[in-house]
């Protein structure tokens, strides 16, 4: 995996520097950056956090109460030429094995349009453009601290390691108020995507996996030396390539001039579920995602996403071992008022376990309520407070000696400093 990434990065860097030329390459004028530090005070009532082998639904547990580093990160952008930008994001926090990790590094090519259709190409490691919430720098959300179940999952298990192209028919050039976008991608990696969702379930947080990240799995007996999935390491490596088979996603989006939009994406990692490599199974994961954004009068924004899909993991003979249907949705209303932003979000999520593998019940049914208030102190400083309550049933909790049904409450107070440097 590391080899794949470094080879890809080398190729991208080389490709980018060729047309740019050596003189442009060193020009600091074309370099811009965004730096962000987020300190959080947390109070949670979860007994064991999922980052410590538990099955709770929030980022923090009782042990974490107090001051925490929410996030520190740097996004670098380099305009290599008029049409080519190189971008990379380095994130750090106190979670995972890799305290600092690259979450994105890619080349963006935006050729000059020859018609009302304007296109771009991206190559490298990057987020598929699926989230309506994570539209801030470093893939943060301007609305809440913890993102919805859907986008938390995208942040931890989905990453495009490949090529994406997107074409927008710009309505303004043809007398229309709507922009139509069609996009598609072919990517490697993402084969273990589905393992965390199946074994740990949905969660609501702001963590982002990156290069080399090992996301811990719950301490269930099926990963023991004599367990059903003893070949699985106690962690998931979401970006890893397992079967050398590329996956794809494709979709379309209508966006109104005022910002309202409706989008649909189909995602299929085309993994061969009978493969396993370095203790990571390949999971054949597919889903449909419908996204709706409404720009309502008076700076009120409505965001809603609905994701429905399935995942399949098999033994080397190809017999299905884990078969799950899953869906999740959220509805959020966010109101901006001068320096304030108030957001309320309702999440629903579910996993339906369709296999009969013993000791591996992935069934889950839950809901969450998120209330968040942000206050912009200055251009660079922002304070937020968020209350998150997740009520979920998950029979697998019994294996950890915990009640099946749990309510996790988490209060976060955050102070963020963000500064943008260099060219616009």
């Amino acid at each position, binding site marked *: 995996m590391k080899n794949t990434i470094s080879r890809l990065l080398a190729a991208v860097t080389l490709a980018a520097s060729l047309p740019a030329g050596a003189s442009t390459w060193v020009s600091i004028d074309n370099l811009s950056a965004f730096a962000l530090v987020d300190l959080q005070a947390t109070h949670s009532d979860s007994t064991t956090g999922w980052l410590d082998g538990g099955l709770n639904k929030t980022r923090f547990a009782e042990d974490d109460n107090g001051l925490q580093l929410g996030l520190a990160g740097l996004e670098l952008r380099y*305009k290599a030429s008029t*049409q080519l930008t190189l971008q990379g994001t380095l994130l750090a926090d106190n979670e995972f094995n890799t305290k600092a990790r690259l979450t994105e590094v890619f080349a963006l090519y935006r050729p000059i349009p020859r018609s009302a259709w304007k296109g771009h190409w991206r190559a490298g490691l990057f987020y598929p453009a699926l989230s309506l919430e994570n539209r801030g*720098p470093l893939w*943060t959300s301007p609305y809440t601290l913890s993102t919805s179940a859907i986008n938390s999952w995208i942040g931890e298990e989905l990453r495009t390691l490949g090529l994406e192209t997107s074409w927008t028919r710009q309505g303004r050039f043809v007398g229309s108020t709507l922009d139509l976008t069609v996009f598609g991608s072919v990517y490697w990696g993402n084969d273990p995507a589905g393992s965390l969702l199946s074994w740990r379930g949905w969660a609501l947080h702001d963590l982002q996996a990156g290069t080399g990240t090992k996301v811990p799995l719950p301490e269930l007996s099926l990963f023991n030396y004599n367990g059903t999935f003893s070949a699985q390491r106690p962690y998931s490596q979401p970006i890893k390539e397992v079967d050398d088979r590329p996956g794809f996603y494709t979709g379309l989006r209508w966006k109104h001039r005022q910002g309202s*939009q409706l989008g649909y994406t189909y995602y299929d990692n085309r993994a061969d579920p009978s493969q396993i490599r370095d203790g990571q199974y390949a999971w054949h994961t597919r889903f449909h995602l419908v996204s709706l*954004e409404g720009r309502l009068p008076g700076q009120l924004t409505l965001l809603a996403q609905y994701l429905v899909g399935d995942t399949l993991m098999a033994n080397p003979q190809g017999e299905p071992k884990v078969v799950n249907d899953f869906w999740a949705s959220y509805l959020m209303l966010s109101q901006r008022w001068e320096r304030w932003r108030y957001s309320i979000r309702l999440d629903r999520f579910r996993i339906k376990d369709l296999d009969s593998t013993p000791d591996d019940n992935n069934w889950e049914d839950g809901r969450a309520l998120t209330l968040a208030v942000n206050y912009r102190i200055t251009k660079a400083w922002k304070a937020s407070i968020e209350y998150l309550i997740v009520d979920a049933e998950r029979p697998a909790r019994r294996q950890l000696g915990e009640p099946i049904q749990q309510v996790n409450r988490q209060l976060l107070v955050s102070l963020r400093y963000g500064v943008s440097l260099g060219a*616009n």
Partner: protein
Amino acid sequence: MYRPWWVSGLLAVVWPATAAQLTLQVQDHRGSPLELRDTVVYLVPETPQTETVRKEQAPIAIEQRDRAFVPQVSVTRTGSRVQFPNRDDFNHHVYSFSATQPFELPLYKGETIPEITTRQSGEIVIGCNIHDWMIGFLLVVDTPYFAASSTGRWTFSDLPPGRYGLRLWHPRITQGDRQSETIEVTADGNLALTRRLRHALLPTSRQAPTGSQDEEHYF
């Protein structure tokens, strides 16, 4: 007095106007004065004219200011210079894919003022490859008789006698309302015309990022 556009056109052809000065008033489809910023009226001579000394057109400027083209709508003559000064302290990448005159002005900022020279008549829609919401419109006309107005009222003086195609243009005016009519100008008297659009105006091309693009900077 309201007359449908085509009736006016017909009357104009049948009863030649006799004037060296033309005053035109245009109303929107509801009958109010067309107060549309920089609406262009131009007259294309249909009878041969000898323009003894070609009126040189001064260069016009389309600025990039606060991530917008200012003015958003411009008009100039063929063979004229159009400058694109960047008043922002960051780069723009101006382009047009219009068949009239496709062009591309690479990233620049500061002192250098790139320009184009218009080659043929037609509409040139201008965009910025960096700021997708920026949009500007340039109309190139092959006649010295053109004027932009924001009040719905235009005056042309010292028009040589002859037949002219009278045309109205603005990106928000429908194709149906842009079609021309023929008027006849004679050496004496004034000609005052009033016209009314048949169709509602097209939606505004607002040069501002949509809400979500705006929030990208709101971490």
